[in-house]
């Protein structure tokens, strides 16, 4: 197990290094001079020169990359050009919102997908199965931000049950924070639920057709016990992989959903950085969000290596 984890961490580090290189390189080709962008077109050449030196722009890019990478490793992600504050503290401020959104969305997805996927497989080829398949097909095709808008329309504007957007910190009022996150997390979670339901259904069907399941039924075990103790455990492995992939999707989806619900999370910070061409902030955010996704994928990997010994010893 330890060998497996070490191997995975090494490959994760290689990927993150490549990601950092790509992120840095991509944002070097942006047309325009950042110093000019900050000071405006009327700045004197001397001011431009000294700012360039301060930002390190007078050095060649490989040096700047190394400098940036070294900073990243110490947790120093540079300083936002527009907001004039450390990128790391901006991220730390916004992270709880995005994190709560993603975690809640994943919970909602699991709460829906588990019963739906299992029922659908157990009642294979029944009207219920067809209904669940149809619903998941719909869920995959609906853009999450449209679900968000429809939810606002129904629950905020007509029924007046939940707020239309904005956020109140967990520390200030946990109940209000939950109320503000419910609709955005549902919009994101429904799409993930649709993917997970389909995966759970097909992997359950696969497992249920195996000989050991027939054996368990033949020796007289209750259907309930066979489904939950024998089948589900084995059916979970591909589902866990997909759930890992979906973390990246939730992270990306939250960028748009935060915009719909005016949530002050990482996604909105990123968009404002893009609109104002705040390169250090974009770099820091892209790197940070990707690292989060890659790291949580690693956790999922380790989790299912733990669930399934076959993977550990491959």
């Amino acid at each position: 197990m330890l060998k497996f984890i070490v191997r995975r961490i090494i490959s994760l580090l290689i990927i993150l290094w490549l990601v950092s290189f790509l992120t840095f390189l991509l944002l070097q080709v942006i047309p325009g001079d950042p110093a000019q962008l900050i000071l405006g077109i009327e700045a004197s050449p001397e001011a431009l020169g000294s700012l360039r030196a301060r930002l390190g722009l007078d050095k060649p890019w490989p040096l700047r990359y190394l400098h940036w990478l070294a900073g990243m490793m110490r947790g120093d992600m540079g300083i936002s050009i527009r907001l004039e504050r450390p990128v790391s503290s901006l991220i730390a401020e916004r992270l709880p919102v995005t994190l709560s959104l993603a975690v809640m969305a994943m919970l909602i997805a699991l709460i829906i997908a588990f019963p739906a996927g299992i029922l659908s497989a157990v009642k294979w080829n029944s009207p219920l199965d067809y209904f669940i398949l149809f619903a998941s097909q719909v869920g995959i095709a609906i853009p999450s931000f449209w679900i968000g808008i429809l939810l606002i329309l129904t629950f905020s504007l007509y029924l007046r049950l939940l707020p239309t957007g904005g956020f109140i910190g967990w520390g200030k009022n946990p109940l209000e924070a939950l109320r503000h996150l419910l609709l955005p997390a549902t919009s994101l979670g429904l799409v993930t639920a649709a993917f997970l339901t389909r995966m759970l259904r097909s992997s359950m069907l696969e497992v249920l057709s195996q000989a050991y399941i027939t054996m368990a039924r033949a020796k007289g075990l209750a259907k309930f016990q066979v489904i939950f103790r024998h089948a589900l455990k084995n059916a979970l492995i591909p589902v866990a992989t997909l759930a890992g992939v979906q973390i990246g999707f939730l992270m990306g989806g939250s960028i748009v959903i935060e915009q719909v619900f005016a949530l002050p999370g990482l996604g909105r910070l990123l968009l404002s950085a893009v609109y104002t061409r705040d390169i250090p902030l974009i770099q820091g955010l892209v790197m940070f969000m990707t690292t989060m996704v890659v790291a949580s994928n690693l956790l999922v990997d380790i989790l299912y290596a733990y669930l399934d010994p076959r993977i550990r010893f491959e």
Partner: protein
Amino acid sequence: MRSLVLGAILLGVVILGSASSWILPLPDPLAMEVTERLSPPSWRHLFGTDQYGRDLLSRILRGGTVALGASVVSVGIASLIGIPIGFAAGLIGGILDEVTMRLMDALQAFPSILLAITIVAIMGPGPLNAMVAIGLVNGPVFARLARSVALSLKGRDFVLAAEALGASRLRILRYHILPNSLSYILVQASIGASTAVLAEASLSYIGLGTQPPNPSWGRMLEEARLFLDVAPWMAIFPGFAIFLTVLGFNFLGDGLRDLMDPWRRGRG
């Protein structure tokens, strides 16, 4: 078969709809009629009008051109970049394979919309740049597919026979690998088109794709969000259009996959 037909019908409707926006004598999708602003669906404006009094039906039909364009352009770019890389990696192998695949890993480690946003941030917002960004983001998917197909075909008897007869690598690629991988590529193209429509809508929603006053479904939803309490119809129809198009491509992809792989037929 059922999904294939269903997908073809849905996409047929979308294609006819966006074509009709250029042919039929509908109101100009950009023409503002201030006296008609925010009017609900009626015989005159079947889908209602927006905050500038523009006819929503015309705008949605015209928006179809953007969505279909996004799917064609980005799938085109993704396959033109991805497939040659994938074939090269799979057929040549060795260090080339190792390096390109690690690069693909890194590209796929980014959440796809995040990478697309970054690329648009570099190239500047706009419909074409958004489509190019989506295409670049989807390239690794095609590369991986082409590589795995090439790897599995490489060891097959007919390829070995061709090799033994002295066929060049290019000839094997052209006459043996490519024709046999087309069906897989077609399925992936269909799935890629559906994600492209969704991605274009997302990018336009956050203001990085199609720019006003031009109509795009994502952009229209963003405008609808501002007038949700007075003009809910603005939010209904564009979302439905995205949904139908994506559903159409998904059904088409499912149908094509079932067609190639009879064993999967009827298993959903």
